[in-house]
């Protein structure tokens, strides 16, 4: 029930932040009777990606540090780990005492991963993606199945009972959340 409510609130927040109202969130919150002066607190801050499906480019990028490591899937000597909301780390652990990262796939909204043969099954927000690794490091999107995970359309802050900065849709789509010290965050879940 609480989850539903939070989701509902988030959707409401997102809709009410629609561009045509033509004012920024901070101004609006400052004007609002319910504005909260909570001071400097730890809060979840939305990280945005451009809301442009055409920009989806899953090509192999240089390895990168793990920040918010997510789910894992092992196949042979390869381990894939989700970087929550950002993509997939590819780890080679042929030498189990010295695993190495061999690349990173850039997939906005990524949370899930599974592998079979040369196929990677993953998601970009609500869409399921099938990637083809057969010509690795040249990675192709084999298919994109829309709206398989409706609940992943708007990633929520990863914890309850915490403040978060209300998302501003004019800045793009929220891919994931980062914890930072923020002055007067106006949303709470």
């Amino acid at each position: 029930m609480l989850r539903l409510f939070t989701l509902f609130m988030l959707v409401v927040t997102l809709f009410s932040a629609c561009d045509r109202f033509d004012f920024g969130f901070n101004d609006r919150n400052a004007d609002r009777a319910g504005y909260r002066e909570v001071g400097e607190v730890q809060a979840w801050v939305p990280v945005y990606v451009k809301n442009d499906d055409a920009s989806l480019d899953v090509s192999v990028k240089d390895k990168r540090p793990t920040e918010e490591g997510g789910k894992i899937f092992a196949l042979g000597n390869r381990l894939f780990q989700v970087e929550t909301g950002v993509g997939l780390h590819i780890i080679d652990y042929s030498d189990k005492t010295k695993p190495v990262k061999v690349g990173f796939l850039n997939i906005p909204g990524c949370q899930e991963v599974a592998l079979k043969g040369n196929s990677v099954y993953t998601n970009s927000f609500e869409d399921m993606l099938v990637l083809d690794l057969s010509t690795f490091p040249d990675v192709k999107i084999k298919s994109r199945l829309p709206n398989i995970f409706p609940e992943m359309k708007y990633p929520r802050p990863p914890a309850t009972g915490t403040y978060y900065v209300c998302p501003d849709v004019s800045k793009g789509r929220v891919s994931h959340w980062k914890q930072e010290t923020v002055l007067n965050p106006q949303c709470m879940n």
Partner: protein
Amino acid sequence: MHELMKIRLLLICGLVAALVAGCAKQDGSSPTNEFANGSGKGGSMARFAISGNYLYVVNNTSLLVYDISNPAETVQKSIVSVGWQIETIFPYDDKLFIGSSTGLFIYELKDPTKPSRLGAVAHFRACDPVVTQGNTAYLTLRGNGFCGSPNNALMVYDVTNPTQPVLKNQLPLKGPYGLGVHRDALYVCDGDSGMVVYNVSRPLFPEAIKTIKDGSTFLDVIPYNDVLIVYVKGGVRFFDISTPLNPVLLSEMMN
């Protein structure tokens, strides 16, 4: 036990043979490819499960079935309505174990394109990954945060009759996430409190042997070819589990 291993081995052999045969038909498959054939293994908190030529996907409410026998095409075969707040799926033998925040659902795959529900059990509201070995299903319940009640536990179900899973045991935990079972060992990620290793030589009566604690937050495990791949907050650790009850840290990949 031996009988079961033999059957599994046979199955694996059959699978490999099938794959090799499948490959032979495709001229394009290069022998130098770095990615292994066959399917791998995911953690217990996954929304994807691969069983044979089929991919099973759970979203919040439904189980979706895809035929992936032809790598060029992902063909949807069916959608099965399961419930709500579905979170995890775990394939075992010819069954699927599906965890939701209100209960556990067991589906059988006699027709792999049309999973049918065998049984279900309700539990208190919590997040609940599930794994299975033999006739026992292990399930962790985390009640913190999003997931409802303040209860945290390892639940042990006898699923000899999958139409009527029976709760046999309930052990307290602090705030568990994923879990994995390998031979006589059950590994349970208990968040900040470490990874608990249970002896499950008596499957319905897990006995805590030790807790591996190193300051990190343990989230999920994959026992895979005598290696335990552990997903901790911020990265991955590799443990040798050739002696299942005594995992030995091999390496880590934290950034």
